[in-house]
């Protein structure tokens, strides 16, 4: 009975767009596009007795003490400074360009691409804060210290390869990291401010 040339009727697809729109709006709302960014840090492993003996041996000239008190005032190497001065001060300390007696001592080490370089490999920046310090000020200081390292690394990379540190390849970055190793120690805070 059925005729062979009967066509299958088209499915009405005019509502596909509406369905797709609904889904689209759902995903638009649930999307959080913000990529998480932050200051990456490495904590020291939990303290044990052997470590304590080691830390006592660090010479005075190799340590830059940065201290934040409960009113967010900044002290660096024994004098009050503002946050704007910190970056230059840290750079001078890490690099020690004039081989200053009071700045960290330099050792000659062998680095790929560079040969023998004088490096202040034993320097430590010791960051200490009070329990009452605000987190905002703490991050600002951390940021400037990391910034000081990044500036020095970029400067060296520009001199050698004409590129920024982040654009170099793995081996080149490693060589620069050997010349400017990042050594920021976050000491446990003392309770200066809260006790009265």
């Amino acid at each position, binding site marked *: 009975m059925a005729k062979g040339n009967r066509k299958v009727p088209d499915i009405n697809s005019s509502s596909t*767009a509406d369905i797709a729109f609904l889904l689209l709006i759902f995903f638009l709302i649930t999307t959080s596009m913000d990529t998480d*960014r*932050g200051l990456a840090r490495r904590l020291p492993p939990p303290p044990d007795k052997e470590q304590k003996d080691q830390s006592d041996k660090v010479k005075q000239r190799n340590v830059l003490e940065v201290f934040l008190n409960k009113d967010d005032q900044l002290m660096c190497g024994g004098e009050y400074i503002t946050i704007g001065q910190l970056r230059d001060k840290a750079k001078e300390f890490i690099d020690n360009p004039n081989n200053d007696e009071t700045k960290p001592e330099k050792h000659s080490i062998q680095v790929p691409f560079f040969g023998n370089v004088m490096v202040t490999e034993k320097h430590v920046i010791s960051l200490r804060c009070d*329990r009452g310090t605000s*987190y*905002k000020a703490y991050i600002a200081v951390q940021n400037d210290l990391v910034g000081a390292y990044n500036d020095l690394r970029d400067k060296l990379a520009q001199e050698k390869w004409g590129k920024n540190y982040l654009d170099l390849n793995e081996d080149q970055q490693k060589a620069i990291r050997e010349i400017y190793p990042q050594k920021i120690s976050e000491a446990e805070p003392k309770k200066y401010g809260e006790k009265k």
Partner: protein
Amino acid sequence: MGKFSKTGKREMPALNTSSLPDLIFTLLFFFMIVTTMREVTLKVEFKVPQATELEKLEKKSLVTFIYVGKPTAEFRAKLGDESRIQLNDSYAEVAEIQDYIIGERASMKEEDQPQMTVSLKVDKDTKMGIVTDIKEALRKAYALKINYSAQLRQ
């Protein structure tokens, strides 16, 4: 000039919308791919501080979040203005962090465990005391890779 005279009989041709679903689907797929669903409901308010030397936090599956800030408005009456720590969906004390980190680490794949990163999302007006306590707890739990969440300063 009869060319321009309107006869009224002429109709606007219907716009062909048959490719509209395809366009929408393309957009839909884009958003489906970039979407990361927020897994926890926030019970603390925080505004992260601003900084310039930022690094991107990669591989979301390796990251554990710790939130610190003031309780949100609905909990404030009960808990006050003091900064609180939030782990997963509930408020927590510093002593609970160590167990939480160990639990999170155990749920990761074994080869990923050394790369575990803890992202601290801390309100900028928090006092350092509580942050230091968290850091100490993280050190004890051997979660040494941390990331202070911050916004890019323009």
